[in-house]
């Protein structure tokens, strides 16, 4: 395991693969847990149905769940490894948490009473409350953007963790 820190290919696919081989049980556990979580949440809210239609939205859910869960599992497994082995008083990397929140925004905020309730609490009934679709509809139609954003945040989180393994002293 210590060899990873010295490896010159720590940020490459080989370096990542080497870490994952060592952590494969943990990685697979995280992957399975995250995949089930995303798949259940996305299916429950029929994520992407109005955007992709009956024929294709299942594939959208599957692809989103798979992409996010594999990146999240990588991020968690490598993040834990970097914290355990080399981290010393380094600022926490929160991009994984941000990614988690971003990935759930479109499915949980669109077509639920949360946004209408907030608008009613702030502006009262009627008027602006009857335009809550401006937010909800946009979340629904731009949900792929949120998924991509979450994936990029997770990718960033993985990169930071791998950098820490290479340079334990870095403030990254």
């Amino acid at each position, binding site marked *: 395991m210590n060899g990873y820190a010295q490896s010159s290919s720590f940020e490459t696919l080989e370096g990542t693969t080497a870490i994952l081989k060592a952590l494969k049980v943990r990685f697979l556990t995280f992957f399975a847990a995250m995949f089930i979580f995303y798949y259940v949440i996305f299916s429950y809210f029929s994520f992407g149905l109005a955007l992709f239609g009956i024929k294709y939205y299942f594939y959208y859910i599957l692809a989103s769940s798979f992409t996010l869960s594999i990146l999240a599992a990588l991020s968690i497994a490598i993040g834990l490894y970097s914290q355990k082995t080399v981290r010393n008083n380094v600022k926490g990397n929160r991009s994984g948490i941000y990614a988690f929140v971003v990935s759930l925004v479109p499915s949980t905020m669109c077509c639920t009473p949360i946004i209408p309730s907030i608008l009613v609490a702030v502006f009262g009934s009627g008027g602006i409350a009857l335009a809550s679709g401006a937010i909800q*509809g946009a979340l629904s139609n731009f949900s792929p953007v949120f998924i991509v954003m979450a994936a990029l945040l997770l990718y960033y989180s993985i990169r930071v963790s791998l950098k820490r393994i290479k340079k334990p002293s870095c403030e990254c």
Partner: protein
Amino acid sequence: MQKKRTVYVFAAIVIAIALVYFFGINRSAGASPSFMPAVGAKAPDYSFIYASNGTVANVSSLNGKPVLLWFVATWCSGCAVGNEMLNDNISYFKNKGINVIEIELYRDLGYSGAPINTFVNDYAPNVTSYSNFRSAISGYNLSLAYDKDGYLDVYYLIGSNGKIVYENDGSLAATMKNLKSKINSLSGSL
């Protein structure tokens, strides 16, 4: 310290998801929410436009037969699922002598989705062949009277006398069972 913060963030996320669940899904039981006209009250009489031919009609013009007024937005995935459910149950409503009017909320609640006809054809292709189904577009006053808080997927069962018999602010897809058991229990007095 960092660990503690992470735990707080995750706790907040879990609480948020729980709130979504309880407010979003479990709202179907219990008394009428304050934003809906009360059960037993006369159905507010405002106008809508039939999507098929552009005819303007009032809710009172539906009196004489029980009617299900279902308010949707055409960009809403939950409403699309409701359409699939309606597609499978439209014959039930026909057999019970209930008309079904699926109404697009005023200006689609501020975000332009598909036209209501397209939305219905995409997710409930069978319903258009049933004479008891029609789709429509809401005027501002109708949306304000029946859904002033702008919730998605709310519906009303109005008796042949023009009074509200049953209503639900949970999604039609999630509460179809409740609706049918209510209709079955009212059979004959609708």
